[in-house]
């Protein structure tokens, strides 16, 4: 459960989870929505994967992420979002840009 709390403590990762509610997205599409480096995004993806909140699947050269949250984890996300739960610094997500499939892992 510690991994889940750690994953949900960061606003960027919470925003990634919100984006994935629309359906599976490639790493490149997700990275496009944030003004951070690809390595930083990769680190965020790793934390989310480790917490079991997302699943990844390799399709050709792309890595596709999809949501896999239980009801309890969903409720925790809503709680964290409502109360601005933030334990560590993270860049704010920028407006969604045109989706481009990238090769960010």
């Amino acid at each position, binding site marked *: 459960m510690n991994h889940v709390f750690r994953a949900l403590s960061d606003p960027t990762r919470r925003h990634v989870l919100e984006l994935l509610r629309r*359906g599976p997205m490639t790493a490149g599409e997700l990275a496009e929505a944030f003004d951070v480096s690809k390595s930083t995004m990769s680190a965020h993806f790793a934390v989310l994967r480790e917490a079991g909140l997302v699943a990844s*699947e390799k399709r050709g050269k792309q890595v596709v992420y999809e*949501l*896999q949250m*239980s009801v309890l984890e*969903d409720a925790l996300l809503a709680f964290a979002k409502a109360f601005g739960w933030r334990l560590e610094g993270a860049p704010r997500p920028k407006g969604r840009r045109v989706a481009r499939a990238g090769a960010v892992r």
Partner: protein
Amino acid sequence: MSGLTRPARDAVFGFFGLAAVMAAFAMARRFGAISHDLEQRGMGAAVGALLLVAGNVVPKLRLLKLTGAESAGALAGERTAGWALTIAGLVTVGLFLLAPLAAARQAAAVIGMGVVLLVTLDWLAFGRGSRVPSGEPAPDGRTYSRVTVVHLLYAVLYVLVAVSVKYLVADPGLRRELEEWLWLAFWLGYALLFAALGRRRRPRRGNPNLGGTHA
């Protein structure tokens, strides 16, 4: 059990743990250790907890992927079903712990039938959504866990309907007749479910990697 993912394994342990709790209440009542009311409250709360355990894991395992549905609609459908089952479970546990027993039984029965209907309609609507191009579920190593939890969920929903009928129908003759029909419907439904899941998981000729994933 070794092929199950962590959430599926937790659900299986939760299911059998609660079944053991229900058996313990029944035995305790049989040997006169607890009153009839306490047995009823314990059994009702355990059924509510079963709903909670099953509902919590539904969106995590993406059960509708067994039908090949991968759209955002399918995700929303799983989320709706998961939340409906979880909230129904919480309310049922609360009713059997706090409300007068007669009122708790009636209210829980209505909630139970309502949530079974909601989940059925929800999955009929979203389970037929956009599919992967081949019409087969994309194998991702969680198929065995999904199939296991679908069987558990089917059993939980049957228990819920059976208990609801018992609580709602006062006439013993009609109740016995309905229980017999329900038992028949359970096995017919199970056979259909078994056949449907087997068809989905059958490997296709020329591509043995599709379907039948047990990891």
